[in-house]
């Protein structure tokens, strides 16, 4: 119970801080909006072409936008050294990690919910395959991005150029997940193949990396 209580309190605190500052969500929204508009002008794709490229375009836009919120997630804890207060409390490291990961998940999901209608409008998208599969793809794909992103943001916390370091660490390790998200989304949009294999890959990826992050996070938090 206490684990959940800390998680809940930390998540509520992070949501409250973001609601007051709106630093991350505004930056993410503007970034994604720019990607949608610029790419639609640059390519002017037909509906058929859109179905083939939209999977990659959407997820790359969300990945880059997620970097903004992931960089912010620990920056707040570093300001005034608040993380030291957490380290000195009896609360578990993993409850902090999961609260941060869930917080980032909520921010990115909100962004996706807001941006998806714009993607559909600008690229005249429509799914030929089973559209409901986009829901598990979005959920699993977003978790894959934020769980590793939260972890690597914590690793790069004490590095001098952490905003550059995070993408350098995160992007290579996210390649299998990105492959899963893009191919699963394209499969649903074009209806040419089943997305099941890629969804299973995303499930496996999420399970493995969530466990790995939970096992290693305390070491990262206590590192000087």
């Amino acid at each position, binding site marked *: 119970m*206490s684990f959940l*209580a800390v998680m809940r309190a930390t998540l509520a605190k992070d949501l409250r801080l973001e609601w007051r500052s709106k630093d991350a969500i505004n930056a993410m929204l503007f970034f994604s909006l720019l990607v949608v508009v610029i790419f639609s002008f640059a390519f002017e794709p037909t509906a058929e072409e859109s179905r083939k490229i939209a999977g990659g375009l959407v997820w790359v836009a969300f990945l880059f936008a997620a970097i903004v919120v992931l960089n912010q997630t620990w920056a707040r804890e570093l*300001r005034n050294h608040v993380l030291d207060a957490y380290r*000195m409390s009896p609360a578990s490291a993993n409850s902090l990690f999961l609260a941060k990961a869930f917080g980032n998940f909520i921010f990115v999901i909100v962004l996706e919910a807001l941006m998806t209608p714009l993607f559909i409008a600008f690229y005249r998208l429509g799914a030929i395959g089973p559209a409901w599969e986009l829901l598990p793809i979005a959920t699993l794909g977003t978790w894959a991005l934020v769980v590793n992103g939260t972890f690597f943001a914590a690793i790069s916390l004490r590095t001098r150029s952490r905003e550059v370091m995070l993408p350098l660490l995160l992007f290579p390790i996210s390649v299998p997940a990105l492959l899963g998200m893009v191919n699963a989304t394209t499969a649903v949009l074009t209806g040419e193949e089943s997305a099941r294999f890629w969804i299973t890959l995303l499930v496996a990826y999420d399970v493995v990396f969530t466990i790995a992050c939970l096992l290693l996070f305390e070491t990262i938090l206590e590192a000087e």
Partner: protein
Amino acid sequence: MPGPHPISDALPIIIADGVIKQFGRFAALRGVNAEFAPGRLYVVLGDNGAGKTTLLRTIAGLAQPTRGTISVLGAKEIKTVCSQIGYMAHPSLLYDEMTGLENLRYFAGLENLRYFAGLYGIHDDAANFTCREAIISVKLDPDLNRPVGQYSQGMRQRMSLARALLNDPTLLLLDEPFSNVDFHSAQEMATLLGQMRDQGKTLLVVTHQPGLLESAANEFVWIDSGKIVDRTSKLRAGTQ
């Protein structure tokens, strides 16, 4: 050579045995051997870079000794006794975007988990009462509906002290509690620290204004180049 150790029948609350702390090639602590008795107020003095903050962080468990051992409240694994330690650092350890009460309620939730297994960590009313009491004890208004980021530096210092007092700690580690605080408020804080010592708490206070604690302090601990070089019961002349 370290000066005389405190005369006390009680077992030491802190025992440092050959503590060395290195940051790369630089040694911030170079073999600290010391014992600190319970229920006393120690004032830690030294020049900038002498190792005062590193010593406090090592006692708090925020820095691990490179060599040597440190035992706090009878435990070598300081994490196991962290709920009995209050730490006030040079930065405020508070969220600028939240009010003082919101900050303290969050930290109260983290601190009291071992003792209260409820879903909210501690009962809401009890948490509220504890947080308000801590804020009032440092002469601030708990109903001040302003984010900490908009506090004056002195108010922030006091709120930071309130956060350190929140878990009613046995051992209180304070790093520069009087910096940027006006003289009158600093005197009030010094009186409060003296009262805490009288209640049986142990205090280690790093300060460049030792004169404020001259009457309350039991001992002055002098650090130079990462070593405790002297321990005196009276403040040396010219170090007010």
